[in-house]
């Protein structure tokens, strides 16, 4: 074949690719927006006393087995979230561990469980829709009957949240689903329900963001009041307890209030940062802390979600299958000219 033909072929191929890419409808995909009634958690490291009530309650509410990291298998001692554990409290320790919520010679507690990203990598990564994000509440759920066990979600999550039961012949992914199975009974996330100090607070993300800002505005060292359990927006109806009971009318009506009594405590010195408000396109679990989040094991993430980047590529190349079909057309045209059935003999040579 001569040079001319070669270039013609190259040009044809290139043109086909270019048209494919150009005619493709997809624009760069932005981060997804926060669902209207997004539910989440607010974890305040400065309030956490490390009692692990949330770890125990999580296991009970989700029917998860015990996990042991010690030789004596007396009680549940998970090192990290895993196929058997959806939620852990980890300790940050430095030097003499004298003061809580201080980086140097201090200590702090940190919760690790699903962040319920606004634009989750796991949902974008899953090839079979086993990971789903509820369009209304934004809770990221997992369906083991759909799952093929490829673990792309495990690898993709920047927080390392979905975990896998490697020791089973019928394994599955384990991750926090914000106790969605309890919602129908008017209950909410078990971790928030049992938290004695309100360090883990459940509620709508919009309400929790307000609460986080309220805390950041507090004067360190002064007594303040912290809601516990479920922080309800004013318009939210009473979901628990007798609706006709004492004070029910008030609760259903006019102010943001938690279902449990408030926890009085001295306001801590917060870092001026609500982790999860901007990170990675936002997460529905928000965090406050006195110690840098990186020291607590949470990565410093850009505001754009990786799912947006990944889907931009996929939509550009494969949106509506326009580009592949255009390229296939061009390739077929070229191949038809160049391929001669072998039986008739006479290849180029």
């Amino acid at each position, binding site marked *: 074949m001569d040079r001319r033909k070669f270039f013609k072929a190259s040009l044809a191929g290139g043109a086909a690719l270019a048209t494919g890419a150009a005619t493709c409808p997809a624009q760069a995909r932005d981060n997804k927006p926060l669902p209207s009634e997004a539910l989440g958690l607010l974890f305040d490291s400065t309030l956490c006393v490390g009692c692990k009530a949330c770890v125990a309650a999580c296991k009970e509410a989700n029917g998860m087995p015990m996990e042991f990291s010690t030789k004596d298998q007396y009680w549940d001692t998970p090192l990290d979230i895993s196929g058997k554990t959806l939620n852990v409290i980890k300790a940050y320790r430095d030097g003499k561990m004298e003061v809580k919520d201080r980086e140097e010679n201090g200590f702090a507690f940190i919760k690790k469980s699903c962040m319920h990203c606004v634009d989750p990598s796991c949902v974008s990564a899953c090839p*079979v829709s086993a990971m789903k994000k509820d369009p209304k509440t934004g809770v990221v759920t997992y369906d083991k009957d759909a799952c093929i066990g*490829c673990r792309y979600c495990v690898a993709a999550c920047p927080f390392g949240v979905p975990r896998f039961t490697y020791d089973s012949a019928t394994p599955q992914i384990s991750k926090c689903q914000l106790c969605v199975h309890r919602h129908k009974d008017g209950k909410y996330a078990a971790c928030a329900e049992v938290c004695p100090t309100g360090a883990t607070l459940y509620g709508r993300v919009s309400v929790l963001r307000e609460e986080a800002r309220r805390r950041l505005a507090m004067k360190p060292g002064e007594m303040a009041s912290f809601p516990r359990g479920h922080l309800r927006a004013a318009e939210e109806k009473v979901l628990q307890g007798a609706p006709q009971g004492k004070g029910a009318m008030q609760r259903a009506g006019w102010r943001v209030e938690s279902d449990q009594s408030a926890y009085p405590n001295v306001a801590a010195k917060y870092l001026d940062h609500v982790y999860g408000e901007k990170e990675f396109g936002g997460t529905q679990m928000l965090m406050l802390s006195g110690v840098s989040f990186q020291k607590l094991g949470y990565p410093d993430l850009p505001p754009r979600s990786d799912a947006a980047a990944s889907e931009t590529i996929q939509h550009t190349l494969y949106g509506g299958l326009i580009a592949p079909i255009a390229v296939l057309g061009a390739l077929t045209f070229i191949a038809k000219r160049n391929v001669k059935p072998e039986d008739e003999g006479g290849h*180029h040579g």
Partner: protein
Amino acid sequence: MANHAHAPRPLGGSTFTPFTLLLGVLAAIAGVILVYRFINGLGAVTNLNDGYPWGIWIAYDVVVGSAFACGGYSMALLVYIFNKGQYHPLVRPALLASLFGYTLAGVSVIFDLGRWWNFWHIFWPGYAQVNSVMFEVAVCISAYIVVMWIEFSPAFLEKWGMKDVKQKLNKLLFFFIALGVLLPSMHQSSLGSLLVIFGQQIHPLWQSGMLLPVTYLLTAILLGFAVVIFEATLSSTGFKRQLETDVLAPLAKVMYLTLAAYVVLRVAEVLIRGALGTAFAATWQAFWFWVEMACFIVPLVTLASENARRSASKLFVGAVLLMLGGMLLRINGFLVGYMTGEGWNYFPSFAELMVTVGIIAFEILAYIYIVRNYPVLPAAQPATR
């Protein structure tokens, strides 16, 4: 160049040699380990963990394995799209190697899937999630395996004497060839795109972002050429046949140009993203980056001249280095440069490794069996003239 001299013919000869026996034993060991894995779960056999949910079964068997199987793709691209008919004798053996490479890559995915019995969900409209790169890769690879079997079927049809079917197929073959070029372009680039969603979890030296599909596609084509040269050299030595230097030398030139394009792109891409600084840190990632780059740059130097490309030994060494470089790019991207957070360790377990070895052994064994019994390799004069 006489056409008929190159018409493919079965090689003949005995399938049972000490070498094939060894391969058989290795494949059998892998089989036993896999039975154990399906009964007791992935954890019983592999060192996989939640920090490294993907081990060598994905990084090597699937990602590298399918790239090594790009010989058929690269040759089809060259012969049928760029109409370089002189390479036609190389197409069928390359296609065979690709067929095995891809089929086994596809099968090894099943070994790695935790809930493998649900595999069909990928192709089922209610389940399929089209935004997923994994979905694209899985569908595309599966389709390509089917297309390749169709492309290769003339070899079987010839042997079984089904002339009618073969003729009908031959008339439609151009379409399958076009598909056979499109599909690998799609999924080989997508194997790179798999890493995009890992974001910061991939070391900056390998997180090329939007360019990942380009670098992976380019190296896949490059690897395709290198593998064809590698296999041609091996089979000429192994089956005591004349080395087709006249065909390989110009092919080497095409490979060289692809290589040059890749190296320019890769260096520019690392520089522009400002990731080069991390290559001078005292880390394993930096070390393996330089090894990987050396594997690309050394052939760029040694294969620069026409004479060098005519030298069987230099060409062979160059091809091997390029295969190594392409392999390292993928292993580095998926394992060495994958940093999911502090505290996680992974190195394949012995059993895990033996499965990979067994798969490779099985692949070689099947290749030997097919070329001895089916018309694949071009009939050529014995090495001794």
